[in-house]
């Protein structure tokens, strides 16, 4: 049984209803008051995305400055509900052409109502694919002036589209220049002890594609993952190439990927939808290349002074560089004065986050940077609880680097007309929750 949502609400941060839609009449109209009273105005906000109040369950999610709340009165599939929310947001984004926030909602009431009618029926999720919905919901969102205006489409033939064998692609597309963009985006999650041993480490990655191809092309993607390579070696009856192979876990594909072929030949082949889509997602838990090493030393000198030393080392290739590096070094709540010295970037005490915020705009590979700070604390009347020492958090982006080591070996495009295509491949690694205990 899918979600069976009784209602969906869009609230702003103050708790006012921006827009809502009731799918079933088994919940009352005052649900949102209950949500506001029991969730938004309590400290639990943000701690637990599913809450039960009375006989109803509230699933909520915050996206930019909007809360999306699904109210359910029966036993429902929570994961499905959240997936629905995420997909719906993507759909809205593709209609609005960019941001999804309070203003965007206010500007697009009619469109949202129409979409909400379409994507969920009596509480059951329906087709959420933007490409298809755009065929028959031809309302246009109020776009920001920067996004490109889509080309005029031929007269849509929605029935064929929905019932056809390739439901996600229209026939008869044609582009002057046939291009494929492929991005591998990875985020690294790390928890490291203060002594430098890795406690938990994994990479979640996704492959995003953007296709501007004519006709009905067949694409084939080759990665340096273990299964694919072994299979290939088997078929071609030659020994596996030496070199690094990657073991991917929990791989999920976009619906366009031909799974039978994947199962038999272990190759990713697909007819792509037009435009932007997420081809696959994966996770890697072994053999992760950490981009940064952090060596903290924090000394508490008596009750009112602390000495903080943090050394950060970049361990990726010397030619590469990380962008937007932010290191948050926690300090106690009663911090009064700080004096900080850094070898690169800037560092400042941030009282609202209780940390020293150290920002480095560009961090080249194979280099080292240090922060040393003296922190003075104020005395409090609260009983002297020893400071819990939360972990140091780090944010960064490293272009052209994959923490997993995943590489695209080939991307072949085959179409009846046999035109030439241009393929673009990019890699980027971001910090997920990159934490080092101190």
């Amino acid at each position: 049984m899918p979600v069976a949502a009784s209602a969906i609400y869009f609230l702003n941060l103050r708790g006012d209803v921006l827009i809502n839609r009731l799918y079933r009449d088994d919940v009352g109209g005052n649900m949102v008051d209950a949500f506001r009273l029991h969730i938004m105005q309590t400290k639990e906000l943000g701690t637990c995305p599913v809450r039960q109040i009375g006989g109803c369950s509230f699933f909520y999610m915050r996206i930019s400055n909007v809360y999306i709340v699904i109210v359910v009165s029966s036993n429902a599939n929570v994961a499905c509900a959240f997936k629905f929310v995420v997909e719906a947001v993507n759909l809205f984004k593709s209609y609005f052409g960019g941001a999804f926030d309070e203003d965007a909602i206010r500007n697009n009431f009619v469109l949202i109502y129409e979409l909400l009618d379409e994507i969920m029926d009596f509480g059951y999720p329906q087709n959420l694919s933007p490409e298809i919905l755009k065929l028959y919901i031809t309302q246009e969102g109020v776009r920001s002036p920067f996004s490109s205006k889509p080309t005029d489409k031929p007269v849509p033939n929605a029935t064929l589209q929905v019932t056809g064998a390739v439901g996600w692609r229209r026939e008869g597309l044609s582009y002057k220049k046939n291009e494929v963009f492929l991005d591998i985006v990875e985020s690294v999650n790390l928890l490291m002890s203060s002594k430098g041993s890795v406690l938990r480490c994994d990479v979640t990655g996704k492959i995003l594609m953007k296709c501007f191809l004519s006709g009905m092309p067949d694409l084939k993607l080759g990665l340096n993952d273990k299964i694919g390579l072994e299979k290939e070696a088997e078929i071609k009856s030659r020994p596996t190439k030496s070199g690094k192979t990657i073991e991917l876990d929990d791989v999920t594909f976009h619906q366009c990927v031909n799974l039978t072929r994947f199962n038999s030949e272990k190759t990713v082949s697909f007819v792509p939808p037009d435009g932007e889509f997420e081809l696959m997602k994966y996770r890697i838990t072994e053999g992760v290349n950490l981009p940064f090493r952090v060596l903290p030393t924090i000394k508490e000198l008596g009750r009112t002074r602390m000495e903080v030393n943090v050394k950060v080392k970049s361990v990726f290739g010397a030619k590469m560089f990380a962008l937007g590096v932010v290191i948050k070094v926690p300090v106690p709540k009663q911090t009064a004065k700080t004096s900080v010295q850094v070898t690169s970037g800037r560092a400042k005490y941030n009282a609202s986050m209780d940390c020293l915020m150290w920002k480095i705009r560009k961090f080249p590979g194979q280099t080292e940077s240090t922060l040393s700070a003296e922190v003075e604390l104020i005395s409090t009347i609260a009983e002297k609880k020893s400071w819990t020492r939360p972990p140091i958090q780090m944010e960064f982006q490293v272009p052209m680097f994959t923490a997993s080591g995943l590489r695209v070996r080939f991307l072949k495009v085959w179409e009846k007309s046999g035109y030439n295509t241009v393929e673009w491949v990019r890699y980027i690694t971001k910090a997920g929750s990159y934490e080092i205990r101190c």
Partner: protein
Amino acid sequence: MALSGMRGLSVFISEIRNCQNKEQERLRVDKELGHIRNRFKNEKGLTVYDKKKYVWKMLYIFMLGYDVDFGHMEAVSLISAPKYPEKQVGYLVTSCLLNENHDFLRLAINTVRNDIIGRNETFQCLALTLVGNIGGRDFAESLAPDVQKLLISSSCRPLVKKKAALCLLRLFRKNPDVVNVDGWSDRMSQLLDERNLGVLTSSMSLFVSLVSNNHEAYWSCLPKCVKVLERLARNQDVPQEYTYYGIPSPWLQVKTMRALQYFPTIEDPNTRRALFEVLQRVLMGTDVVKNVNKNNASHAVLFEALALVMHLDAEKEMMSQCVALLGKFIAVREPNIRYLGLENMTRMLMVTDVQEIIKRHQAQIITSLKDPDISIRRRALDLLYAMCDISNAKDIVEELLQYLGTAEFTMREELALKAAILAEKFAPDLSWYVDVILQLIDKAGDFVSDDIWFRVVQFVTNNEDLQPYAALKAREYLDKPAIHETMMKVSAYLLGEYSHLLARRPGCSPKEIFSIIHEKLPTVSTPTISILLSTYAKILMHSQPPDPELQNQIWAIFSKYETSIDAEIQQRAVEYFALSKKGAALMDILAEMPKFPERESSLIKKAEDTEADTAELSAIKSRAQQQASNALVVTDQHPANEPPQVTQLGMVKIPSINNLENNHVDQEVTQTNGIMGEVEPQNGDILGDLLAIEGPPGVSGTETLTEEGALALAPVGELENAVKPVIDIAERFRDLCVKDSGVLYEDPYVQIGIKAEWRGHQGRLVLFLGNKTTSSLDSVHAVILPPSHLKLELSSVPEIIPPRAQVQCPLEVVNLCPSRDVAVLDFSYKFGTTLVDNKLRLPAVLNKFFHPVTLSAEEFFPQWRSLAAPPLKLQEVVRGVRVMSLGEMTNLLNSLKLIVSPGLDPNANNLVASTTFYSESTQSMLCLVRIETDPADRTQLRLTVASGDSTLTFELKEFIKEQLVSIPAASRPPVLQPTIQPISSSDPGALLAGLL
């Protein structure tokens, strides 16, 4: 407040107010706190102005609900600033941020004290306010004298005095020792002479607290309070600013009346008269007006006055006036006033005998039961429940029944319960009770708990007159097309037991009854089917000679249910089927249920539990209290040192059955008579409960019955075997030998207590014969079989002990000569058809006629030597003595009133004891005892007894020997067995037998 000068503060506040959401606000606050921490850290750059500004910010942040855990030092330091603005913020922030347990406050005590004893009134006020808000024990100890000085000083302005009084109140609450009781009664009465009403109100608050702690010391203030009330009531000298909607200072009036309620009574007639005059004036002068505020104020005064009137136990006239006033209130439209009226009426019911007057308003109260406001309905229900007695029970219960139809669901259960309790308690006759309950079940079957119908069954079973009527009623209800399942259960049970009593009426032949019950079978649930099966079995038994057609029908049903999936039904079907083939024996097996032993109604207890209303003086609770006190009065008649045996609680233990054969017969009897006894635990909620609540003793223990032998029939008889004492009689007797009061005997129906007084050779025993059941006990006989040495006179014992009653039977004892023999009480009674006969030993034993004496060495040894040889002095080596230490032995002898004189005997292993014995033949006679123990072998000792009389010496020696040897042993000398009749001088045959 000098905020206008502080730009930073107002900017900060406006920024906070402009925050879009909570998160932004938190970020701003955290940033500001970081800033303040930074500024406070470099002490040097901080001007007084900055300090003040940041402390204000801290207070604002704290008021928004954020934790502020620093900066208290700065706040406290501002207290000692010389200027008002700084001082003010210092005091204000300190009293907001800190509480009495913070150590920081110690730093402030001295500064605060300086302000209090200083000359500046504004500073005094600030300091007093701080102490009044957060003063703790430390403050109480160090500041109380100064505050007291301020309060009584004549030079202080009223403003300071007011604050000082309230401050002292706080300190007194924290530490009652700070107010010296002796010194303060005079000062307090001086304070109550105050003319300024503001100061007086504050002082009165203090006074209320003081008298609630100890009213004794403040008697002298009582007339002053009355004076204050008089002044207010007459509206003399009350300034305009203390008049609230024309009422002179209602707060002071209420407080004064509250204070007066702490004094138990008012002795002085003049004061009393004056007070009543005032109260009269309050009662008369209160009216319901339009203005809400005025109403509130005048009602506050009025209800406090009512409470005071109740407290003082005023004359009846005044009470009736109060009730009349309340009656007026409950007729008012305004729901709040009606609520108060009803609640106070309920309160009044507890206090005095105003019930008659309240009854006049019954109609109005019943109308309130239909009020749209549920809290008023509840109050009305409580009040009706509380005011119900025999005279109006019929009306009230009828009203409740009527109301039941329309009451909302949340109240129905409580309502049904209350109706049932009232019906049971105040039933003018039992048939009415049955009517009411059946009606109740009919109207609100869902809300009638099982307890209620169990209770009906119990009543009907225990009252033979009621049985045909109840059966008839049940039969009538069965004619209705759709009846509730509970009704089905009751009817089936009643008809099964008693339908034969109706047999002559038209439409009541066994066959017709069977068919009308059987019609309903398909509609009932499994537990009810079990009851129906029992009913069929009973009907079958009652149709004698058996009607073959009916028999076949019933047999068919039994054999159908023999394969039921429900184990209980299956077992019943199989067993009834087998039993019904027994022919004539069926009559005995399925005889009527025996009477239930009486218990306190479980309903009342349940009513207490379900009492959802938390009103402090709910009617039920007050009733329960009254009942508890009744119970205490009853048990007070029992000897004081017995373990509490409150009969109503009815913790009837299952008698321990030691005779295996008896046990078997018992169980047969049990099983056959109490067919309901074989209840599987899973079905316990139906009949298991019936038995658990009301089950006669002996019914339990049926789990062993499933053996095949259990179905075999044994001759039914010796029912009295079922009645077993619930206490160990032998042990009680032993206890009573050394004590003078306690319980001699107890079984499920009867308890016999005893209380004795002994003077010289005479004694007076009182037997308390208590009937624990609600039906009377017949053919009660108590005969004393006295031994030769005692003259016993038992006053007449009534033939019948009424239900729940206790009969006292005094018994005069005269001791003629020393002997160890024991008197026996032959006690018999009849419960239902059961004859119970018991022979009980009376604790009029030898040692009861001892009088303890303590002898010195000079007195003892001449006596000891003068009684030199047998028979006056006897010596015996006793073996097989129970092992005990010398201390234990001393205690034992002392408890027998043989007083041990320590240190008389040079040998530490020897004991020397003495006592005086009284009897008619010997008069008072000194007895001397010496026990020489052997530390190597504690089981033997040498006993020497001496007295002026040879019989006494012998008897005493034997008596002590018995005590030493055999106290805990089970076997006792045969003389003490009650079943063997002691030799009685009045019975020549026995005498002869004794001689032979």
